[in-house]
């Protein structure tokens, strides 16, 4: 039985985790879901070789650095249906407020002007490099399902998942759609 369960993976890019929190607000439904699907975590996107593909890939957050880009692409490669949760993933969300200014300038102001004198701007190779502009998911990869909202309510998230489990591609009507 377990073999037939659809596999779901979720990932968070540059978001606030609010969308995932809203997902947890389905409360008791989490238990039902545990029966219905198998949650693979976002590690699937870490190593494509060893991990089988998932059926549904869910992403929260904005694309703001090269790692996000990579994660998004890998998620796309490894899932059948890609779901964008929240304004951030759907349209870019609040993070795109940084697009009014050049990245270098922002970094300088945030790290040099707002910390002590010995501070430096983070640029180590072990941390990702910021993209010029913060972007919504579909500026990088194809998205199949859009569940906007900041965050989408638990009900809407649930609706989306239920539809997917029924084998339909959900589309939010005017009562469910919120930005």
């Amino acid at each position, binding site marked *: 039985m377990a073999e037939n369960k659809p596999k779901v993976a979720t990932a968070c890019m540059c978001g606030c985790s609010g969308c995932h929190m809203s997902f947890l607000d389905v409360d008791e439904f989490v238990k039902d879901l545990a029966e219905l699907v198998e949650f693979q975590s976002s590690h699937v996107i870490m190593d494509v070789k060893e991990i089988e593909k998932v059926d549904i890939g869910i992403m929260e957050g904005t694309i703001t650095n090269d790692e996000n880009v990579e994660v998004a692409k890998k998620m796309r490669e490894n899932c059948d249906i890609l779901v964008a949760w929240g*304004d951030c993933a759907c*349209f*870019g969300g609040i993070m795109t407020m940084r697009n009014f200014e050049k990245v270098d300038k922002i970094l300088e102001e945030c790290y040099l002007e707002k910390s002590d004198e010995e501070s430096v701007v983070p640029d180590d190779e072990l941390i990702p490099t910021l993209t010029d502009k913060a972007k919504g998911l*579909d*500026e990088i990869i194809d*998205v199949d399902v859009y569940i906007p909202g900041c965050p989408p309510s638990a009900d809407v998230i649930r609706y989306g998942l239920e539809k997917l489990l029924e084998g339909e591609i959900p589309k939010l009507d*005017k009562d469910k*759609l919120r*930005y």
Partner: protein
Amino acid sequence: MNTVNFNVDGQDISAKKGMTVMEACEEHGITIPKLCQHEALENVMACRLCSVEVNGKQILPSCGLQVDDGLKIQTQTDHLKKYRRKILELIYRSENHYCMFCESDGDCELQDLMYEHEIDRFEFPRMYPEWPVDSSHDYIIKDSNRCIRCGRCVRACDEVVGNHTLSLGGRGINNRIIVDAGVPLGESTCTSCGMCLQVCPTGAIFSKLSMFKGVKKECDMTTTTCLSCSMGCGTNVYTKTGHIVEIEGADIHKESGGQLCEFGRFKPLANKGERIKNVILREDGEEKELSLSEGLEKASEMLVKSYRISAYASGDLTCEDLDAFAYAMRAHGALFDVVGAKRHRFETEVKRRINMIEGHFVTDIREIMKADNILLYDTSIYHTHPILASYIRRATSNGTKLITIDAYEDKFWNHSDKSITIESPKTQLTRLVNQVIKEGKASIEDLSRVSSILGGLRVHPKDVMEIVNLLEEATYDIIIIGDEIIDRWSLRHIFELAKLEGSYVISLNHAGNQYIKNLETEGVYEEPEVAYILAGDEEDQADMKELIEKADFSIVQSARRSELTEMADLVIPSLTMFEREGTTIDINGVKNKVERITEPKGGIRSEIGFFEELAKMR
């Protein structure tokens, strides 16, 4: 016939000639999406969202399309929906909309339409144009980031308020709302009426005082009447868990266009004194807090033992409040007066003397907009009666001539055709005008000679002649007398002039409730033993202060701490404008309902009950 027959979405419809397709559809319950169209404003066809398919070929905006016999209209084809979706998307993407922290989130017409069109993704990239936020105004924030350039605010400021503060300027995507010649809103000619934010479909202009206090759609809404002045504006007051979120004008269908002024829309929500929760007694240099019943006790004790009692009430109360107060005060043998009533008494007296009939008075102030000429005495009404002022401005934009006479600077300076600044006695000017009208124009020569002999007279014969000429050539002129004109002689001359010329008169006074005209008032002792002042919301009335100063013992009943309550010997809690209920009479003599919006939060629940008790304690 006056009706035309046509077809909408397969349904046969008849409508009055001259209507737009949109209006006719709405009448039949067919809604067409719209953004720039607003019922109180002219149609400009700026957004094209309301486009419909006409006779199967053209696509035309229905808000600008006149109904006609035989038209075949489609409002909901797939093609139209796609077209509209594209428009919406473009509007949204070319500006900086961040609904998650937008004050209008939930109350935004653009957002509603986006939901309705199920826009959950965008084809067009975002533009990120850079716009600053203008937060310079005390009450209003203008955020171009969310402006969709529908021009509603511009039209409202122009057509409804008659103020022309806002205009659309700049080309292409730089097209934006400009304030005057490009100044911050806080430094502009804006009158703080807030009409722009009431009509703005988005979060591009909004009230600082209401920000994030609640989504209007989810609030309770009560329609009531503003008590701040005698215009009797209808207001829609939105509340959330019993607290006011926002106040809007209710009468969008009427001439006022749903306008309110600063006093009706913003002031009630702005900074105010602290509520009075207990009775305060100041005795022998000490301040004591008493319960309401102890306060009642103390008040009656003072009233019972005194002979010369002056009772004075604010004019911004309901008819019922005024009656109850008057009754209680008379029971204690007090002389009774209300703010604004004195002026009314003078007026009545003068009218009787010169035998002037009611027919000379304008019964509907909107008539102002039809006058050929307006002669305005006292331009301070620009600030004290802003709605009336807006009618005057609107009239002038339509060609009405305006002459103002004021002791100070003409507050209508950029609207009036002639401003006469003349210190008291203004009465001289009017008297001369009257004389010239009576004795013929030649008499002006003699008059100026006489006046120069008498010396000191600063009336210009030229001014006199100008008024005379103006009144003569017009068929419909209105004389407006501001509430600052309170001397009998001025009133007498002005009324005489109206009588001579057959002009109509609008006469203003300080009272919000014109019930004072029905009430018996008699003027009060100037140096009473006890002064009992029912101030309500009123915070600093000069004559109230004067009365307190001259009284041996003063009682002030007030909703909030103010200069008045600081001066009083006994302070009793009162109600605010939103806690009162009953009726009020506006300047046109119409009785309007005043609804209780919020539960009384001061130290008194029923003021009328309080006065009933007081009346019994003799």
